[in-house]
């Protein structure tokens, strides 16, 4: 920016629901097709490309999908470090659909997050109750 700009008040209605905490993309219209099917896929073996994702989601998703007994193989890779994309390969046994497996993986990972939040909150509140000095806040 080469020059100073005047501040203007927010456009009414521009405020979107900020309930999705921590998600970098908040605008409603920003949902793009991020999961792209790579060629050579069948119902029981496919690779998915996740844009703007890395080891954070890749490894966690790989772990939870590998926990599914219908899955023969699951692995992820980041083909090139300077391209922000992550590939996930899933191969399943018999007549299990890879899309269902991926969806179950996402669901399971969400359930896992809920459990961690619950347990963490309980443990923290107990700790704070027994250690009053921790209650002192900045």
């Amino acid at each position, binding site marked *: 920016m080469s020059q100073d700009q005047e501040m203007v008040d927010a456009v009414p209605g521009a405020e979107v629901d900020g309930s999705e905490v921590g998600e970098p993309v908040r605008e409603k219209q920003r*949902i793009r097709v991020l999961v792209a099917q790579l060629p050579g896929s069948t119902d029981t073996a496919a690779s998915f490309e996740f844009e703007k994702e890395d*080891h*954070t989601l890749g490894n966690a998703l790989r772990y939870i999908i590998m926990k599914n007994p219908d899955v023969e193989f699951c692995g992820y890779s980041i083909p090139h470090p300077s391209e922000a994309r992550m590939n996930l390969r899933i191969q399943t046994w018999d007549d299990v659909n890879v899309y269902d497996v991926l969806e179950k993986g996402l669901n399971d*990972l969400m359930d896992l997050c809920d459990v961690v939040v619950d347990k*963490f909150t309980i443990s923290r509140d107990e700790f704070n109750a027994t250690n009053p000095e921790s209650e002192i806040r900045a």
Partner: protein
Amino acid sequence: MAPSQEELERRRIVGVHAEHVDNVSSTDFPHHYLGEDHSWDVDHFRNKLQVKFHKNKPFESVFSLVGIDAAVANAFRRILLAELPTLAIEDVFVFNNTSIIQDEVLCHRLGLIPLTGSLEGLRWMRWYKKPPPADDPAAQAAARASGEEFDSAASVPSDNNTVVMDLNVKCEWAPDGQKLAKQGERDPEKLYVNSSVYARQFQFVPQGNQEKYFAEPGQIRPVNPDVLIAKLRPGQEISLRCHCVKGIGADHAKFSPVATASYRLLPSITIKEPILGQDAKKFARCFPKGVIELVDDEATGEKKAVVKDTMKDTVSRECLRHDEFKDKVALGRYRDHFIFSVESTGQFESDALFLESVKALKAKCQRFKRNLADLMR
């Protein structure tokens, strides 16, 4: 066919040896062990997961997560470092800077100052999307090619995406400064006014609704008022205006909400054969204080080394360098016991940040579930 307790313990421990580590990979997957079911089960996970707090201060939280895989624990750590949004100085408009610190160096320093303010207000703030520079056709083409919809409202600074802070400092002689100087006084604090510029001298300039959201005492301010920004001498002046926006650590480290967020695995020390007498004393000295305890051994009447608190161990492997110990002890780390240490920079509290990281991972899943549904349509 359930595995024995001994076998389960063996699987839990990553072996640490003098020159190598072994048993590094998780094996808790279906089809890995014959007759064992390791498929995902939320209830089993809930029963197995333990969270133990060791320390909970706003600037540092230490806690153990037990019963979780490295893939997931690492996701939380990575999100803490790089994906949780915070407010930081992004654009600086320098009106006057006659100090000896160059404009660009000064601006870089300003960006790194951790800011804080009302949490409600920070949550209310939206992203500011920087438009590509008008004189850079390549950047404009890249922005168009990225296929992202251009939201013009997010590219205009407004009260819900930009916070304005002013810094106007001028150094002058103190009223009796020249006299003191003649008397040989050298201390700049006594000779001059504003010889040092501190972060506390920033002035928050609320815009629009910010009056309400960042009302006292929740005004935007540096976490630490004593951050030294620059030094001045009489006649020198810094006059600038900063625009602070929300961003994430992946874009620039100044947006990272944590100073560090890391984990280590709980060390395990197994004494396979009794270590007695003088050897026991020497053995205890191979570890940090408090790791090994000496107790009276009833069988021999000598002092015996027993493991007291492995949490304090650093896994230096010193004991493996001594021939008398190397076959009597097995070192390792618990594969599923993560001791997290989260140190916030002060914008949010450390424990709250961890919860945010878990929620952020969930939000990622939700987003891709929506995308997957679109793909299937």
